[in-house]
């Protein structure tokens, strides 16, 4: 027996790896000004990969290919596109960071970012827990290095923390995979589902596996109480990397979580949805409350990312197409808002990483009205105020939770959103209603502004015309296996 070699659903990853390797070779062999070429190669890789992904929307072959390792459903397509979009913006931001500080720049940024993207696009399509784990490691390893790339003290510290805690959580995940194998005798996610369906006996091992897998993935989506690394890493990493990973990692890890739990462990959903609900409740409350106490914008956004992980988990308590659809919509919206806001953080002052405290935002409107307006839009959307994408997303996940009987969780979410609104409004007040004290100048570079414009456009469009994507999201939420 030889495996079926239908490589078509795997083309996006192949393209990304090829682009990354071209970048590595170029970095090793070429001299002179390199960043334009690097950027061109990487962007070309992402665009081609996106095209290949789009072509998969109408893929008519088997639900899984390559000996059951890769899923071909629309969840994989949509999540991949979101990740690729985040990578596109991340590249623009990273190139700008390199232009601003050439001394600390490393050409390996581009291949590493592509490798991280490969890991992410692979994990959202992985239909075998071994591939999920490997993809998780590929993306994590690349992100550890991207975090510490500038070699400054804060970045190195963040990188080390991320690495130590990340390795720890990977071990949990791997342990969970081993337990699944012990319980079902397979690591293919559809086969796990078949093995668990209709089993009446002792489920202890499978439940333990579910808990361990939830810990491993909970770390990656930075759900409380596995969020400890998030503020330090988001703050210490270069802002461009933070923007990329805050969006793309969440999409990737949540897509993996959806596939593992809503396909593989579907039979156990009465056992794991309370766990997910508990994680969601803790994340929402802790993220919102702790964000209030932060004086640094990156830390504040990091805690807000913990809270948003909680909101997305709220949607997943439904464990049906409604919940998955709502969570997917939330992920797309959140990616746009978080990349946009971190992009603004990167250009608020020309001093970049040195000034990420709230004081840098005093009177931003006077200095740079466009930037202030964009930031306000992102913050309003993060707070979940209509007519932005954040509002529609929140309505969706709360609706799904209520439909699944988790009314208390939805109520808690609403309350936490109100509390968190204070955080975002405080920054808006600083930007619009306070006179600037210092002679700070915002960075006029064009590349980050492209990323900001993309993010703002998505936030507005999704907020005003959510119907444009709800159909897509709904068809992606029907998992084929």
């Amino acid at each position, binding site marked *: *027996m*030889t*495996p079926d070699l239908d490589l078509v659903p*795997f083309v996006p990853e192949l393209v990304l*790896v090829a682009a990354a*390797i071209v970048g*590595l070779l170029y970095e090793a062999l070429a001299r002179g000004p390199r960043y334009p070429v690097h950027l061109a190669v990487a962007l070309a890789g992402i665009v081609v990969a996106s095209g290949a992904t789009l072509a998969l929307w109408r893929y008519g072959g088997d639900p899984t290919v*390559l*000996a*059951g*390792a*890769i899923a071909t459903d629309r969840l994989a397509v949509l999540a991949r596109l979101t990740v690729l979009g985040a990578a596109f913006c991340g590249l623009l931001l990273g190139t700008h960071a390199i232009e601003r500080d050439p*001394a*600390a720049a*490393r050409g*390996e940024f581009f*291949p*590493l970012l592509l*490798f991280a993207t*490969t890991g992410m696009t*692979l994990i959202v399509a992985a239909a*075998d827990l*071994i*591939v999920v784990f*490997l*993809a998780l*490691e*590929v993306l994590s*390893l*690349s992100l*550890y*290095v991207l975090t*510490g*790339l500038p*070699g400054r003290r804060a970045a190195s510290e963040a990188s080390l923390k991320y690495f130590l805690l990340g390795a720890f959580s990977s071990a949990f995940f791997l342990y969970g995979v081993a*337990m699944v194998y*012990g*319980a079902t005798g397979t690591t293919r996610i559809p086969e796990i589902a078949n093995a668990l369906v209709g089993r009446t006996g*002792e*489920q*202890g*091992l*499978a*439940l*333990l596996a579910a808990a361990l897998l939830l810990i491993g993935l909970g770390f990656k989506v930075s759900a409380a109480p596995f969020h400890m690394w998030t503020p330090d890493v988001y703050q210490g990493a270069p802002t461009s990397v933070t923007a990329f990973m805050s969006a793309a990692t969440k999409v990737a890890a949540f897509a993996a979580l959806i596939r593992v739990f809503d396909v593989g462990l579907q039979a156990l959903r009465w056992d794991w949805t309370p766990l997910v609900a508990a994680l969601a409740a803790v994340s929402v409350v802790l993220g919102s409350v702790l964000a209030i106490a932060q004086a640094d914008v990156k830390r504040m956004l990091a805690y807000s990312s913990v809270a948003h992980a909680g909101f997305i988990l709220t949607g997943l308590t439904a464990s049906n197409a409604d919940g998955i659809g709502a969570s997917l919509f939330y992920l797309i919206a959140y990616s746009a808002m978080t990349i946009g806001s971190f992009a603004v953080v990167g250009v608020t002052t020309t001093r970049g990483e040195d000034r990420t405290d709230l004081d840098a935002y005093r009177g931003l409107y006077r200095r740079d009205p466009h930037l202030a307006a964009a930031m306000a839009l992102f913050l309003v959307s993060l707070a979940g105020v209509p007519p932005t994408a954040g509002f529609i997303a929140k309505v969706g996940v709360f609706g799904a939770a209520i439909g699944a009987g988790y009314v208390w969780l939805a109520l808690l979410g609403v309350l936490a959103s109100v509390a968190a609104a204070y955080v975002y409004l405080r920054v808006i007040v600083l930007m619009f209603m306070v006179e600037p004290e210092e002679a700070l100048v915002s960075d006029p570079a064009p590349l980050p502004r492209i990323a900001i414009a993309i993010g703002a456009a998505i936030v507005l469009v999704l907020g005003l015309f959510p119907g444009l994507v709800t159909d897509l999201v709904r068809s992606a939420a029907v998992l084929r296996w």
Partner: protein
Amino acid sequence: MSADQLVFWIFAPIAVAGAIGMLLSRNAVHAALFLVVNLFCIAVMYLLLEAPFLFAVQIIVYAGAIMVLFLFVIMLLGVDRGDDLREPLIGQRPLAVILAAAFVVEIAVAVRAGIGFATMAPEGFDAVNRDGNARALARVLFREYFLPFEVTSLLLIVAAVAAMVLAHRRARAVTQAELERLGLLEPPREEAPSP
């Protein structure tokens, strides 16, 4: 008692003792050596389970390569003597012990309840291993699991690039302007052009 069981009962206690010794020894090199002992005993277990390929690979890769590099780093950095192992956060250690014990009990119970402690080889093991364990493994690895296998190579590339990027920091050329800003250099004096 068969020969297999005899070997098991010789090596299993050594493996456990090695693991405990690794945890308890304060000297980093001793800890590494205990780990080598443990890995070696685990390799013997693979041999008993009729997986000779894993046995050899376990020794070559773990005991032979990884642990030697561990020792290499320990020696190079000189972290082997007189480390301060006191915990800066109060209460972490007892808490960790309690939670770890609870975790171990939980796992043991779940495994016992789920599959029991196996007393025989899985069904069809002999048939699969018919023409050699190495061949059987190769067949699985390069057919059913060839994508994971290839992704592993991707992971190794990333790891190699990562290690090089982090370890090999290019000596950074400091510009005159930067030195001035840091106050390390007097501003350049006007000099008469030399003939």
